[in-house]
């Protein structure tokens, strides 16, 4: 029986300094985050349970991670909405809190964009006159460097990993027809933003020889019961429909895999197919399956959709699933008819339409700097200047969530996962929390020792579970004694 899909998205944003001499992206990211976090930055990240080098295939870790961010004193904060906002490599990274529905995750992913935008506004007040920072929700600088937008899904530990690899790979290779963020290149425009950065089918790496299926086995939850599938093959999306479908369809396919309901759709050459599809915005080119058939990416997606429909009808007919199926079918039908018509739903098509219009009006060619600039500015997080946001403001893209839902997600945690407990504790007792992480909150109540409250069950610590206790706990000490009394 498939388990609930607790999900999150982590986005590394692009950052650059305009008119800043000796620009240092690491320090600039830290400054940016701290300017938003204010006093929350004294709460530390609890690294105790982290082991990003543990491999889902069962290999032993080769080395322990050195949390350099911690040593350097770089920003690493946990927000009252349950999110983590920190410096990763040379980027500001926003990890949403754990969400239980695709719609909730879209709201929290959008909240991340707004938090970056607000951070930019606050940091600009302390920069010397004339200098400014720019932040982009994209995945590549167009010069060979890529940075990630990762998804995470809670998966049943009992599901054999080879089955996940077999059934998820063809899905990931073909879902880019709707999840791709697009990228302009000298040869034209493409739909998948970064297919070329992926060189392996399965592996642990995320920064070189990137694999389609990442094997990092770090569940941030009870490891005997759960995996956290760490997905690195996606693009950062601005279109809400694209984000909604990216996580909604993947969560459904994972349920199909847990219940072993999918046939073998293995591709003969998955990495090559990933690259080929990413370069084919017409979505017409076929790829070869291991059984010899040649199929269009759409045909594989229709097949996954058919299995998902059957599953939802027979096992889990929820409104959330119905909404995913409806959008999935609607978008596949649209691509079938004319992929370029999907500019209200999909980032690559929205951007392609702008690029094509400039190309024609200004007589440019695909290698023009102006087109590259438009590509980049599409992803600018400022609603006043980002081209996606200009389209959204004038009603030219479909929305999934309301501005009110986004505003709420900036302040409040999701109510249906453990993020509720984490976020509410940060919001209510900020002075009494020493550290926190995905699966812990560490309290400093002034007692002799710190109190670590583990949150190893992603579906415990919801509003339903802890709201009443939080309401009657004036202080963190009250909360701890309430938790001990209740256990």
């Amino acid at each position, binding site marked *: 029986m498939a388990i609930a899909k607790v999900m999150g998205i982590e986005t590394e944003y692009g*950052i650059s300094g305009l008119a800043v001499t000796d620009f240092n992206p690491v320090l600039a990211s830290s400054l940016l985050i701290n300017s938003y976090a204010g006093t929350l930055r004294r709460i530390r990240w609890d690294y105790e349970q982290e082991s990003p080098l543990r491999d889902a295939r069962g290999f032993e870790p080769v080395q322990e991670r050195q949390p350099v961010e911690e040593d350097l004193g770089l920003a690493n904060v946990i927000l009252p909405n349950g999110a983590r906002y920190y410096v990763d490599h040379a980027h500001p990274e926003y990890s949403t809190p754990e969400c239980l529905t695709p719609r909730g995750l879209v709201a929290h992913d959008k909240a991340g964009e707004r938090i970056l935008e607000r951070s930019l506004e606050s940091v600009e007040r302390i920069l010397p006159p004339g200098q400014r920072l720019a932040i982009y929700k994209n995945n590549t600088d167009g010069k060979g460097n890529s*940075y990630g937008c990762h998804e995470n899904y809670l998966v049943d530990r009992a599901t054999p990993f080879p089955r996940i690899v077999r059934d998820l790979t063809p899905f990931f290779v073909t879902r880019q027809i709707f999840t791709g963020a697009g990228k302009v290149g000298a040869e034209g425009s493409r739909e998948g933003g970064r297919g070329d950065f992926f060189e392996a089918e399965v592996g642990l790496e995320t920064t070189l020889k990137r694999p389609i299926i990442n094997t990092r086995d770090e569940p941030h939850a009870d490891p005997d019961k759960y995996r956290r599938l760490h997905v690195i093959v996606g693009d950062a999306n601005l279109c809400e429909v694209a984000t909604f479908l990216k996580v909604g369809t993947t969560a459904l396919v994972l349920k199909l895999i847990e219940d072993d309901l999918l046939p073998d759709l293995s591709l003969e050459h998955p990495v090559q197919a990933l690259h080929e599809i990413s370069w084919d915005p017409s979505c017409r080119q076929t790829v070869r399956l291991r059984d010899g058939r040649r199929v269009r990416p759409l045909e594989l997606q229709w097949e996954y959709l058919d299995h998902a429909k059957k599953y939802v009808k027979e096992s889990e007919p929820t409104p959330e699933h119905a909404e995913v199926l*409806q959008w999935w079918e609607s978008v596949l039908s649209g691509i079938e008819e004319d992929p370029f018509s999907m500019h209200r739903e999909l980032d690559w098509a929205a951007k392609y339409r702008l690029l094509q219009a*400039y190309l024609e009006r200004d007589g440019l060619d695909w290698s*023009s*700097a102006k087109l590259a*600039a*438009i590509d980049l*500015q599409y992803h600018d997080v400022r609603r006043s200047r980002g081209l996606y946001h200009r389209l959204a403001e004038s009603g030219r893209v479909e929305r999934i969530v309301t501005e009110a839902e986004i505003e709420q997600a900036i302040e409040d945690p999701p109510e249906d996962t453990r993020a509720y407990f984490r976020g509410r504790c940060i919001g209510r007792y900020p002075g009494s929390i020493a550290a926190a992480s995905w699966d812990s909150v560490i309290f400093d109540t002034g007692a002799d020792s710190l109190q670590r409250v583990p949150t190893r069950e992603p579906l415990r610590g919801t509003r339903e579970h802890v709201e009443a206790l939080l309401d009657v706990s004036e202080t963190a000490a009250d909360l701890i004694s309430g938790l001990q009394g209740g256990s």
Partner: protein
Amino acid sequence: MTQEQKRSQRKGGGDGDDGGDAGQTSATQKGEKLKEEMDEILDEIDSVLEENAEEFVKSYVQKGGE
């Protein structure tokens, strides 16, 4: 509004008058309307685009991540 309604509205350019009998005239009108809309979008974007595209693109260099 359901998604189906949204989709058909989108395809019809939002005016809901793409009945089967309108034929060629309607297609031409639709083409003109699309072009008008695109011109409007480009005008708006022109006003927010970064100046000096070349310099702007050249200066955007990131360290890899993930």
